[in-house]
């Protein structure tokens, strides 16, 4: 196990390095303009551009530029220039919103996905099973930028059940917090609910054919005990990996879109606002932090998987 963790950590560090290099290339080498001008934003004056050039050392060699960029990002010196606002400050201020959204949505999709998956596997071929099969296929094709506006229009504008976007911090008013988040949670979760229920269902159907399940039945265990102790437990292992990967992908992906749609002032909205204003330092900060978070979560998931399923750490699998 220790060897597996070390190997996985080395892999993680390599990917993190690659990520930082890619971000460096994206901001410093790719653009066909002076990177200082890019960072300064729209209509920047020559003085600001010159000072940024000096500050970031854009006249130095590339490795030096790389180190000065990483130093800036990871010591919290990254600022947007017009007006001068530290990027870290903004991210820290907005992170509770992003976490409220993505953790809440994850709880909903796991709870609903697993319960529905369990029920449809128990009665495979029944009406619930067939309904979920259809929903899962349709659901995959419905992007959040359709589902979000439709939910807002129906439940906020027409029926006025839920507020029309916005965010209320949990510590200010828990009821309003919940009220503002229900639509975004479901927007983010619905696609995964269908998907997870399908995955759990097919895992369970596979496990039900295993010899040890037949043995459990043969030794006289009750059907509910067989299902819960043997079938469900073994079917959940792949779900854990899937969940970890999807959770990371959600924070760095659909959650950004959902925040923008529901005007939640989270980290994703911050990046989107910055994109809209052509302000690059926030985009740089959010990209690097977000990518690091996702890579870290993925490594954690692999370790958890290896812990749960010894075949993984003994086998020669696990790529970077």
């Amino acid at each position, binding site marked *: 196990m220790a060897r597996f963790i070390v190997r996985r950590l080395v892999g993680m560090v390599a990917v993190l390095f690659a990520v930082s290099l890619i971000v460096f290339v994206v901001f410093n080498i790719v653009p066909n303009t002076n990177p200082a001008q890019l960072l300064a934003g729209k209509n920047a004056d020559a003085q600001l551009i010159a000072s940024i050039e000096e500050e970031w050392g854009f006249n130095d060699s590339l490795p030096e530029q790389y180190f000065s960029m990483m130093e800036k990002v990871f010591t919290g010196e990254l600022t947007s220039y017009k007006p001068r606002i530290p990027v870290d400050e903004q991210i820290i201020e907005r992170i509770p919103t992003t976490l409220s959204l993505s953790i809440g949505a994850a709880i909903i999709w796991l709870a609903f996905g697993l319960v529905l998956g369990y029920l449809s596997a128990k009665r495979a071929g029944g009406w619930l099973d067939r309904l979920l099969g259809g929903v899962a296929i349709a659901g995959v094709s419905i992007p959040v930028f359709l589902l979000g506006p439709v939910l807002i229009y129906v439940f906020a504008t027409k029926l006025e059940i839920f507020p029309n976007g916005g965010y209320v911090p949990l510590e200010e008013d828990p009821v309003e917090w919940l009220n503002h988040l229900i639509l975004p949670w479901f927007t983010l979760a619905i696609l995964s609910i269908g998907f997870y229920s399908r995955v759990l269902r097919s895992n369970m159907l596979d496990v039900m054919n295993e010899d040890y399940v037949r043995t459990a039945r043969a030794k006289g265990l009750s059907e509910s005990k067989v299902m819960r102790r043997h079938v469900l437990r073994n079917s959940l292992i792949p779900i854990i990996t899937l969940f970890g990967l999807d959770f990371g992908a959600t924070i760095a992906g659909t959650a950004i879109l959902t925040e923008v749609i529901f005007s939640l002032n989270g980290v994703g909205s911050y990046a989107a606002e910055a994109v809209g204003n*052509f302000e690059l330092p926030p985009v740089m900060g959010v990209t690097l932090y977000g990518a690091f978070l996702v890579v870290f979560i993925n490594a954690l998931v692999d370790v958890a998987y290896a812990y749960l399923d010894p075949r993984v750490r003994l086998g020669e699998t696990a*790529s970077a």
Partner: protein
Amino acid sequence: MATDPQPGAAAAGGGRERRGSEAGPWKLALRRFLRNRWAVAFLGLFVLIVLFVLAAPLWADHVAHTGPNRNHTLEKLKVGDEVREVVNIEGQPIGPQWFEADGKFFLGADGRLGRDEMVRLMYGGRISLLIGLSTAVITTALALVLGLLAGYYRGWVDSVIARVLDVIWSLPVLLIGIALGITLAIGGLKLGPVEIQAGSLWGPILVICIFTVPYIARPIRGEVLALTEKEFVEAAVAQGAGPLRIMFAEILPNLASTAIVFFTLTIANNMLFEAGLSFLGAGVQPPNASWGTLISDGSDLLNTQPLLAILPGVLITLTVLSLNVVGDGLRDALDPRSKVRLEAHTGMVEPKGASV
């Protein structure tokens, strides 16, 4: 992973399908596809959508009498005896007129600028589909070459390609896509002979291609690894065929059915990716519009003119859904036993366990 010879293999490698000795493998696959009613119906839907966006200039010239980027802010519209403002004094655009104004502002105007939403929707769809198709072509071609090189040469070539693909695979694509998209949109690109103007369509196309390649190249590589073990490759080697001939004349035809399926699913996937990027402002740049930017423009007016945001979303969804169903149908028709899937991407996932 499909290791059995596929229809393409039969054509190239001289294998034979067991039933239907008269019909060729492609004909058999076509027959199987046509028997799948859902796939045929959704193929019809996709064709309709393509016709809809192709008709954009016709509608613009003969019905709406305007272009996708023409402003009508201060204009008034005569409907019977009534005069309606395209954009009223509060900046609210006119709603759908259907055929009341002879097809002008069929779906209303798009906002303060008073542009014809129907015309924008049609032209926007052209750009969405164009980007989806072109990126799918480029990615599939690139993935085939990379997969062939890695799977055929193995050794360090394989290590390098596989590592690079792994790294791209493990990146949060939307996030880095936004970063690259916005720097290309502002700064453009100049890398040797390649030059991309700031704000051109090549920006999002490049971003999407880079981040989609691993999703096709990895499974292709796996398939090539398996195919190089087959007898027909050995036979070709024995005949003295060189690496290029083996890769492109012997192995490539066997990848045809996989590539076709991936190509279809990739169009759908890339259209979603483009819509996400454009929705956030890091994809298609004004004055061009795609369905993604239309949703973003329309969401400010969701309370008064919900169709502005919802219709482009519906069109993307229908296009993606039809391509996914057609892709599934093609997979079943070309190789009923294979299980190739396009894996998770930007959080939108193809259901692996789903079967109806």
